[in-house]
C-alpha cells in the first residue's frame, strides 16, 4: 500500500475507533440509562436489556480490532461497524418517521435527540468505515499467463 494511503488509513482508523471506543465506554458506564434509551425507541423494547448489554462490548471490540490488529481483523471490525451503524440508522429513521422525539443514545447518557445531524453523523461514519475497507482491500496482482 502506498505511503499516502497507509497514512490516510491510519488517520481514518484512529478517528473511527476513537468514536466507537468513546461511545462503547459511555454506554457501558451508563448501562441502565442506555437500556431506557433503547426502550424509548419502542422497537422491540423487551430486548433492550440485551442490546444494552451487548452493543458496548461490540463497539469496543470492533474498535480495538480496527485500531490494533492485522488487515483481515481490521476489515472484520469495519464490517461489524458498518452493520451496527446500518441498524442504528434504520432504528433512528423509524423513530423519526413515527414522530418519537427521543435521545438517540448514540453516546449513552446525554446524547443529542434524533435529528438530521444524527443521520449525517452515521452516514459519515459509514463512509469512513467503508473507506477503511477500501484502503485495506486486496491489491490486484500482476499475473503471468
Amino acid at each position, binding site marked *: 500500500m502506498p505511503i499516502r494511503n497507509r497514512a490516510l488509513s491510519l488517520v481514518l482508523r484512529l478517528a473511527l475507533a476513537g468514536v466507537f471506543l468513546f461511545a462503547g465506554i459511555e454506554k457501558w458506564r451508563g448501562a441502565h440509562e442506555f437500556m431506557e434509551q433503547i426502550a424509548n425507541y419502542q422497537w422491540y423494547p423487551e430486548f433492550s436489556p440485551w442490546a444494552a448489554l451487548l452493543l458496548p462490548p461490540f463497539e469496543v471490540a470492533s474498535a480495538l480490532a480496527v485500531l490494533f490488529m492485522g488487515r483481515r481483523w481490521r476489515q472484520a471490525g469495519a464490517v461489524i461497524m458498518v452493520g451496527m451503524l446500518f441498524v442504528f440508522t434504520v432504528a433512528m429513521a423509524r423513530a423519526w418517521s413515527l414522530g418519537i422525539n427521543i435521545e438517540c443514545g448514540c453516546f449513552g447518557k446525554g446524547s443529542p435527540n434524533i435529528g438530521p445531524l444524527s443521520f449525517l453523523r452515521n452516514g459519515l461514519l459509514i463512509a469512513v468505515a467503508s473507506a477503511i475497507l477500501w484502503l485495506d482491500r486486496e491489491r490486484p496482482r*500482476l499475473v503471468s499467463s
Partner: protein
Amino acid sequence: MSETQSETHRPVALPFAQIALRAVVISVVSVASGWYLNQLRPHPLALQKYAAPTECAEASLAPSSSVLSAQAVSSLCGRDDVLFADARDEVQYEQGHVTGAVHLACTSSRGDVGQLLGQLGGKRTLVVYGKSTDEARQVADGILRQTKRRDLGVIVLDGGFAAWRDTGLACSSGACENCESSSGNAHP
C-alpha cells in the same frame, strides 16, 4: 525458447470467508466479555423481559395529583422545590410529622388554601399526607381545584403518616409554629 507472456490484472479476490470468520470471533468475544463483565457490576443489567417504569421522581412533577409510596416520596426529601404538608389535626402533628412538613389544617382554615399557596412560593411539588390515603387525597383534590398554578404537582402519600413512620423515614415532633400565629383564625 521463446515464450509469449502477457500480463493481466487478476480480479480482486474479496476474502469474504476470512473476514466473516474473524467477525464471528469478534462477536463471540464481545458477547462473552459483555456477559462476564455484567456480572461484575454492582447492579447488573437484569436480562428478563423489560418492563417500562411506572413510577419515577420526574414523573411525580407532573401537574396532577398522584399517589406514591413512602419509599418513592422519600426521594423528594430535601429538594428545594418540594413542600410537605400534614393534613391531620394539630395534636397528631405535634406528636409526630414528616420533618419539614407544614401543618395544612391550620394554614388552610375554612377550606381556604390561599395561605398555603403563598407558602409554596417557587416550589413545584406539594406532598400531602394525612391519617390515610383517602383523607390526604380529598385535601389534595381541594388544593388542585383552588390553585391556578398549572405547574404545581400534588402528590398524596400512600398509607398516610403511618406508612412513612413505619418505613423508618425522617420524622419530627413538636408544636406547630404556623398554628400559633394563625390559631386565632384556624382554631378559634
